[in-house]
């Protein structure tokens, strides 16, 4: 009631979420964040799923334009394919925000979860736990944008610490990802029995490495550092003697909420800033154990900085129930 | 004097250690039908395949109008005017296409044009069909046609090509008398235009009707050339077998207890009713024109089709099999015609092909006993004289006639109550036909036997009783003693309705 236009009539506001990636827990949680924030605002949300078809994704922006939406959240995608589509939306007078894809457009704020920081924080924890001399295993699949950005942090840390020896690089996105990476990691450990740190900056990778470490009986020797978190990951990190020491994550649901909030600010004529960064949080095994955290709910309850981000929260903005 | 169109000299061909063609010399004069005779596995089809570019010879020369002729593919041979109708019907037609396209396939391969007008195609095809008296709807898919029609399509296509050399490998083996006669008339026409024709057949009636000269083959060699009129058929047979054949007339035996009753059976709604009883120790031959319903009746006996009305009793119990498995369980064995589609399992060896329906008998707790299978196969190979290297040969390496022997042997290998054979002698040589016939007669005491044959000779050679079908009606029955051939022929062709009552 005391919201600025157009939210004084929120039921008539239509926004669209145009997704590039959808399969997996992260994306599901992101969607739920978008949905809850949209519900809190009372706007009409439509979801377009391109299922990793970049060309289709840009069509979907056009579809959204044709549908006459007021705002669009672009979730992931390729710069090259989304740039023009985003511009078309802007030209049509539609407000647009983009999550985790740079559409090179000054009118479009970037929502970011800072993949670089995700990698960086995890590696800093690894340095703290293990000193600066290790034999490292690394999981990396080039060409995947967030992994490429996390890779930058790895390159930096390697350059700064010459005593970190990168023994192996593995990585595959073959389905099921955890299982395929477990097979590769197992072979890598067999060939390099002295590895003591594994950097797996994606939780599916970490899960696979953990299976391999367990199977190789090297649980006591190897420490795993990763990015992202889910209920299943929490359980895996908390298994007795688990090699998975820490992960760094933003709460995907929070990122989803922030995306919608930034869009709402644009619609209300406010400026959320060129880039809206949702800071990541370090989650260590000992923290999970100390607080007896069993799932994402517990984690949020025990870690306010994880549960909410006070980003893009003007006074009038209705927030989902905290 | 006729010019020699095609000349083969010193031709050799071996498949691994098996020397199939040995030093073959052969001449095909224009305007003459050269009949090639030879026992199953003698190498006839192999020779044909060399001539038409399917196989390359190991050594030897072929000339066509005195020019060296070395076809590397059927296409090559075609282009030079050597046209072949192959023994296997399945090598003749593309079942998913319509009749018109099938009649025109070879024209399509060599026409210059890019586009194809279905209307023109059909017009041409209709012309061919008319010229060959096919009487088929050219739009019908070939998959809906029976073997005989398929065979006629393949033949028709070859004959209208104005070939220089026409090769027909057992073209009549799935045709009935009427179609055969039609074919012969056409061959006469081609002969008159100077085409050199190589004709392969095991049927005496064909050969006597059509041959200008006979070439006999034995074990991959030319065993004799007979050109003087009247042609010495007996001599040719002797040359191809290596010994003389004597006719052993059938002596009908006394029928035993009835095994199968066919009561008031109509194949189609409103069709004529058939009544027939088959007895133990009796061989019945059912004969009739193409499409007279022989295969249909056989299918009904084996549970492949349902009769419109009527009932069957087998050894006193009602018999209405729902599928072949039930029929076999009830003791009915059935060897279908068209072995390539319906009989041969191409990836199996002789042993597994022969024992296929009776694997249960060779297994304990489902585990197969290979030894038993092989022993049974060896004895059947022996009995029927299958020409092969051993019982583990792949079935595909056997000649057509020998494959047929395996197919028949399959159903003779185990005792049964009723044995049904549909065209069991398709592509089988004279000697082997005798051998198989004799074996069937010898073992007939334990069961009733019904043989469906289009050839009257074959019926006369094997049956105690001959039954004639015409348009799905039973129009005549004869004990195989002093049969009046004229009456029989009349009944078969349905020319005299009056005979029905007799």
């Amino acid at each position: 009631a005391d919201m600025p236009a157009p939210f004084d009539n929120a039921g008539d506001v239509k926004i669209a979420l145009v997704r590039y990636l959808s399969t997996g827990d992260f994306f599901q949680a992101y969607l739920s964040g978008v949905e809850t924030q949209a519900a809190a605002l009372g706007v009409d949300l439509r979801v377009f799923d391109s299922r990793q078809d970049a060309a289709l994704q840009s069509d979907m922006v056009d579809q959204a334009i044709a549908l006459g939406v007021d705002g669009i959240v672009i979730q992931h995608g390729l710069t090259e394919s989304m740039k023009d589509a985003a511009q078309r939306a802007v030209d049509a007078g539609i407000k647009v925000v983009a999550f985790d894809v740079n559409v090179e457009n000054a009118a479009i704020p970037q929502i970011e979860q800072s993949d670089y920081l995700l990698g960086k924080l995890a590696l800093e924890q690894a340095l703290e736990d293990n000193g600066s001399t290790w034999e490292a295993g690394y999981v990396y699949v080039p060409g995947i944008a967030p992994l490429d950005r996390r890779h930058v942090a790895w390159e930096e840390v390697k350059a700064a610490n010459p005593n970190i020896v990168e023994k192996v690089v593995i990585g595959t996105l073959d389905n099921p990802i955890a299982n395929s990476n477990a097979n590769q990691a197992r072979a890598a450990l067999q060939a390099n029995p002295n590895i003591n740190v594994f950097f797996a900056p994606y939780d599916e990778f970490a899960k696979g490495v953990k299976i391999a470490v367990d199977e190789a009986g090297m649980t006591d020797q190897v420490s795993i550092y990763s990015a992202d978190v889910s209920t299943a990951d929490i359980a895996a990190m908390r298994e007795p003697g688990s090699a998975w020491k820490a992960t760094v994550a933003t709460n995907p649901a929070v990122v989803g909420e922030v995306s919608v909030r930034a869009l709402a600010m644009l619609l209300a004529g406010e400026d959320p800033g060129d880039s809206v960064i949702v800071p990541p949080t370090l989650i260590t095994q000992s923290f999970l154990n100390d607080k007896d955290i069993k799932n994402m709910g517990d984690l949020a309850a025990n870690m306010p900085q994880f549960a909410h981000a006070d980003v893009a929260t003007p006074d009038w903005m209705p927030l989902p129930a905290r | 004097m006729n010019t020699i169109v095609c000349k083969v000299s010193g031709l050799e061909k071996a498949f691994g250690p098996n020397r199939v063609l040995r030093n073959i010399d052969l001449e095909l004069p224009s305007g003459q039908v050269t009949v090639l005779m030879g026992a199953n596995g003698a190498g006839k089809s192999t020779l044909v395949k060399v001539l038409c570019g399917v196989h390359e010879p190991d050594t030897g020369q072929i000339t066509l109008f005195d020019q060296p002729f070395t076809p590397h593919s059927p296409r090559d041979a075609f282009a030079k005017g050597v046209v072949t109708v192959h023994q296997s019907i399945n090598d003749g037609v593309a079942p998913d296409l319509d009749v018109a396209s099938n009649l025109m396939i070879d024209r399509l391969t060599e026409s210059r044009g890019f586009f194809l007008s279905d209307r023109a195609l059909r017009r041409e095809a209709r012309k061919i069909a008319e010229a060959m008296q096919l009487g088929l709807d050219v739009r019908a898919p070939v998959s809906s046609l029976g073997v005989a029609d398929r065979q006629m399509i393949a033949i028709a296509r070859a004959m209208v090509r104005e070939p220089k050399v026409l090769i027909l490998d057992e073209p009549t083996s799935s045709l009935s008398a009427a179609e055969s006669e039609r074919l012969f008339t056409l061959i006469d026409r081609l002969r008159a235009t100077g085409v050199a024709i190589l004709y392969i057949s095991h049927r005496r009636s064909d050969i006597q009707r059509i041959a200008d000269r006979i070439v006999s083959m034995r074990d991959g060699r030319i065993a004799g050339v007979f050109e003087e009129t009247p042609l010495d058929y007996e001599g040719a047979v002797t040359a191809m077998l290596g010994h003389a054949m004597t006719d052993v007339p059938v002596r009908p035996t006394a029928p035993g207890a009835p095994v199968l009753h066919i009561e008031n059976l109509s194949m189609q709604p409103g069709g004529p009713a058939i009544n027939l009883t088959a007895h133990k120790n009796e061989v019945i031959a059912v004969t009739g024109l193409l499409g007279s319903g022989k295969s249909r009746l056989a299918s009904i006996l084996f549970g492949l089709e349902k009769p419109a009305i009527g009932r069957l009793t087998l050894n006193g119990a009602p018999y209405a099999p729902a599928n072949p498995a039930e029929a076999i369980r009830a003791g009915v064995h059935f060897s279908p015609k068209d072995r390539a589609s319906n009989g041969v399992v191409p990836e199996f060896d002789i042993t597994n092909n022969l024992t296929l329906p009776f694997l249960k008998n060779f297994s304990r707790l489902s585990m197969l006993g290979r030894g038993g299978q092989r022993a049974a196969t060896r004895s059947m190979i022996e009995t029927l004289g299958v020409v092969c290297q051993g019982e583990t040969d792949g079935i595909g390496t056997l000649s057509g006639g020998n494959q047929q022997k395996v197919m028949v042997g399959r159903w003779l290998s185990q005792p049964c109550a009723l044995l049904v054979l549909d065209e069991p002698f398709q592509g089988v040589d004279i000697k082997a036909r005798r051998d198989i016939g004799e074996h069937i007669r010898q073992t007939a005491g334990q069961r009733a036997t019904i043989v469906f044959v289009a050839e009257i000779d074959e019926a006369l050679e094997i049956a105690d009783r001959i039954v004639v079908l015409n348009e799905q009606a039973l129009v005549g029955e004869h004990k195989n003693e002093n049969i009046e051939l004229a009456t029989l022929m009349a009944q078969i062709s349905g020319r005299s309705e009056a005979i029905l009552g007799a």
Partner: protein
Amino acid sequence: MQKNSNLIHFAIRYGFLLLLAGLVLYFSIFAPGFAGPRSAVFVFQSVAITGILALGVTCTLVVDGFDLSIGSVATSALMMSAYFMVILEQPAWVAVLACLAMGAFVGLVNGLLIVKMRVPDLLATLGMMFLLIGLQRIPTEGRSISTGMALPGGGNAEGTFSAAFLWLGRHRFDFFLEKLIPVPVIIFVLLGVLIWIFLHLTRHGRLMYAIGSNERASELAGANVQGYKIAAYMISGVTASIGGILLAARLGRGDVASGNNLLLDSVAAALIGFAVLGAAKPNAFGTAVGAIFVGILLQGLTMMNAPYYTQDFVKGAVLVVALVFTFALSGRKRGSGH
């Protein structure tokens, strides 16, 4: 009885098209924004690339073959065109020609493997698929290609996707409405018509059907069986590379992850095509309709806000139902005599 069989005949012939019409009607009523020329163009646009690949698959299906490598040919063309323009700094036409040549070459190799080496089709093209998946990533060590990317040898890639190339994927022709019909849709329709004409109106097409129905008989009738089979795989390779080029032009970058679903979706389209007009065999018109069918379904579901996982389910369900319908009713089997 007669009437009944007429009805069945009608159902077989037009059932699928009726289903399609019903679907369109349903979505037009219940999915806001579904009806309309722009929406129709979206449908075509979203299936254009899959459809183009499916047309190629159809050609291999006609000669009783199967091409599992199309998806990887398309992504190879995608990477290759990007490589030519961005890293080798070649003009668009060189990139396009190189990709087409690559597609034809891969088809040729597939064909030779199958025809000369007698490797079964599924096997040969599966091997080719793995080969290409690996191969296309080697030049860039698995990275996506975009202007300014760091080169393995040091330095940055200076080339760009030329405007002419991007035009292929992005330009829209005016047609009643302004900027309505995108180039890929036109190419899809053109290729569809071309391949339809080729398969159904030329003697070559007829011979290919003959080969698919009975290879041996066709060979003995003088058909150049090996040539036609190789040609079918080459057509399939070229259409797949056209698909890849269009994908590259739409994306504007050589993205290694794109094109994952191309294979299965285009196979689905070609197979659904069996059901169209009761053909019960591969055919170009059916394939195009099959592709559009899937496009309409997904578009409609998206507009009705169905979550992504229900789309697969519905796609599968409709596929199965449509096909049961056609095949159970028509009851055709591969021919066998009586």
